[in-house]
């Protein structure tokens, strides 16, 4: 298979001056009875500045673990992760994370939720409000700025979460299946919008997803992972023009990229 020939070391060597560098990353958990579970084994890859990389693979392949380590939410067992030449740390202002659930605080209005990162950093109230309104406009939520999250649909809540993440202009975006809980139509629309916002802002992005369609549609490059132990099998470069439009899904280039990603995942399944 041509796809499988692209090993992880080749993936690592091809970028210089990367925004995100992951080398020999390993994460194990101690289980009951002295056994160990390897969530991630020897993951090595890098992401160029402004690049959009999708991590895809079956559940338990460690894709979320890599993202959480990069976000500074959990520690790695071995290996190095550098984001903008610095090690991960929770609360870094140059790094934004989006989770599967929007996690809006129900007692704060949409705007107040978007202001939360700035409020935690003790920023001036007027300035942070102005910026919140600006990003709400960017994600198309100006009309519901003063509403409470309970009044918003799931898709709108996720938009608000995106606005919250973008509110402090992070240079790196880490997204952990941010649209996994949404319906198909909303998901597709948000894919288009997020891809567009990402390329406008030029943010270096890692998206964790288990949807091949989503990965191909949004990413410049897809890293395909396998589980047990979690590892990177190879990569698929998505050579599609931006801005990405929904019509792209029917083009040969899109289908080829999807097929290659599926093959990479499928090969692993055959060996299971």
């Amino acid at each position, binding site marked *: 298979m041509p796809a499988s020939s692209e090993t992880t070391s080749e993936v690592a060597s091809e970028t210089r001056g990367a925004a995100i560098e992951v080398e020999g990353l390993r994460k194990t958990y101690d289980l009951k009875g002295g056994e160990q579970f390897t969530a991630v084994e020897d993951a090595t890859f890098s992401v160029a500045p402004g690049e959009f990389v999708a991590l895809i693979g079956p559940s338990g392949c460690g894709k979320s673990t890599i993202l959480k380590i990069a976000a500074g939410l959990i520690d790695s067992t071995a290996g190095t992760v550098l984001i903008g030449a610095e090690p991960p740390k929770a609360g870094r202002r140059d790094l934004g994370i989006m989770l599967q659930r929007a996690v809006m*605080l*129900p007692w704060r209005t949409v705007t107040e939720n978007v202001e939360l990162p700035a*409020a*935690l950093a003790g920023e001036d109230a007027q300035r942070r409000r102005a910026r919140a309104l600006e990003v709400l406009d960017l994600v198309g939520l100006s009309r*519901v700025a003063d509403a409470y999250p309970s*009044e918003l649909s799931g*898709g709108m809540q996720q938009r608000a979460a995106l606005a919250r993440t973008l509110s402090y202009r992070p240079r790196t975006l880490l997204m952990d299946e941010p649209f996994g809980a949404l319906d198909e139509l909303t998901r597709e629309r948000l894919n288009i919008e997020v891809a*567009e916002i990402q390329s406008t802002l030029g943010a270096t992005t890692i998206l964790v997803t288990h949807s091949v369609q989503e990965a191909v549609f949004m990413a410049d490059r897809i890293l395909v992972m396998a589980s047990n132990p979690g590892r990177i099998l190879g990569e698929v470069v998505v050579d599609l023009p931006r801005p990405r*439009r929904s019509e792209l899904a029917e083009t040969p280039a899109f289908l080829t990229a999807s097929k290659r990603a599926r093959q990479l995942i499928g090969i692993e399944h055959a060996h299971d």
Partner: protein
Amino acid sequence: MPTTDLPRLEPDTSRTSAERPSTWRRVTTSSGLTPKTVALPAAALLGLLAVWQLLSSQGVFNPIIVPPPSDIFSELVDLLQEGYFWRALRFTLLATVQGFVYGCLLGFVLGALVAEFSTFRTAVYPWIVLFQNMPRVALAPLFLTWFGFGVGSKIILAVTICFVPVLVNTIVGLTSVSEDSRTLLRSLGATRWQVLRRLSLPTAAPSIMAGIKLGSTFSLLAVVIGEFLGSTEGMGVLLTTFNFQLNIGAAFAVALVLAFVGLALYGLVAAVERRFIFWRND
């Protein structure tokens, strides 16, 4: 162009209009006072009183043991003109409010410590469970012995009984914060104090308020029981005294006043709750 396609509000507003009464701005819809909800209970009460009055006038009830409503009412009117009644009411109210306030503070502080510090939790949790499940009024005679027949023993009994629901609900509320929201705040670099203030406390607030509402009912109950057992003053003393004098009408009247005191206290707490807690945690 897809990006200019603004989110459509229509389906969302239809969804939330059904949710709104229980989620936010509950204030506008929660009183539920319609002609029907006022008139029906009033009619039920009047009906009951009419039957009672009728049965009394027919001699079915012994008027000494079960006085007719008209007697209770006139006793109540008389009582309201007596200085000793107002002194008793003042004593009971003072003990209840102090016991309630101290009890809530104690329950809240203790609950926050239990929820935030695991060593402290391990040390005291079994004793909280024990204390929660014992009939705490059993301590009343001891408190009388230790703290005398004055207002002090009533306050302490009220604190003892009222702090437990506040404590338990504070613990439950503070520990029910979702892992996702903790992760979010951590990823934003929130300090422990910020997590408590910006996330845990607001999340716990509805639960804590429910505990406080229970506490308000409990503290009045505790004070009256304390007064029954031994007190220099108070509504409980008034009630037992009238009872011994076989002045059942006046005893009824005192109980009636206590019912309104309890309702007022609860209503006050509920009003505070409605003012500040307009959301529902999902």
